[in-house]
């Protein structure tokens, strides 16, 4: 059965800390891995990864995929209180748009 597992499930840090969120997967016919940030409402897109070893970067956030070991990490440097959210990892199975989500990592950044 397809599965996506994220760790840790929750994390509390202080502003300025660096965090690493993990996502491992076992999905048939892998096509892509996506990271989303969910605050109060809709998940918002962060990164899409399809190739191993190529880092995607956006400001203080970066992500990389390892297709051999079947995992991805999301790094956030110099965290701010606005980074507090649930971070969702999802894997697209085939060319279907069917995303298999992990259970999310809840990040709380304290002032």
């Amino acid at each position, binding site marked *: 059965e397809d599965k996506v597992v994220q760790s840790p499930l929750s994390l509390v840090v202080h502003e300025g800390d660096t965090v690493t969120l993990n996502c491992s997967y076992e999905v048939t016919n892998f*096509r892509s891995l996506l990271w989303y940030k969910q605050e109060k409402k*809709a998940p*918002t897109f962060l990164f899409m990864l*399809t190739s191993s070893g190529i880092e995607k970067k956006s400001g203080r956030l970066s992500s990389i995929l390892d297709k051999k070991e079947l995992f991805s990490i999301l790094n956030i440097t110099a965290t701010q209180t606005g980074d507090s959210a649930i971070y969702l990892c999802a894997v697209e199975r085939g060319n279907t*748009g*069917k*995303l298999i989500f992990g259970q999310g990592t809840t990040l709380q950044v304290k002032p």
Partner: protein
Amino acid sequence: DTAVSQTPKYLVTQMGNDKSIKCEQNLGHDTMYWYKQDSKKFLKIMFSYNNKELIINETVPNRFSPKSPDKAHLNLHINSLELGDSAVYFCASSQEGTGANVLTFGAGSRLTVL
């Protein structure tokens, strides 16, 4: 302009009732989806439509019936609501791009069944 909009945002109803949630996207995307997020925050796909045609129909009770009158709209009707249907329902849309489908989500509709 909201890209993917859902109504209503909140819905509180009694067991056994029938209710609908509507979704519209103005992104020009060909594919629309319904996802369910349970109390443990797991997002799970229910249905997807591509240009009004049903593409994905997961193991969902047949009390749930999606309907896509055109490619910009995807509605979800639920008959005989049960307590376990309480969840947040997210509509999403995507357009096939290079290497992946990146979904844009609506703000969610929180359904509470009493």
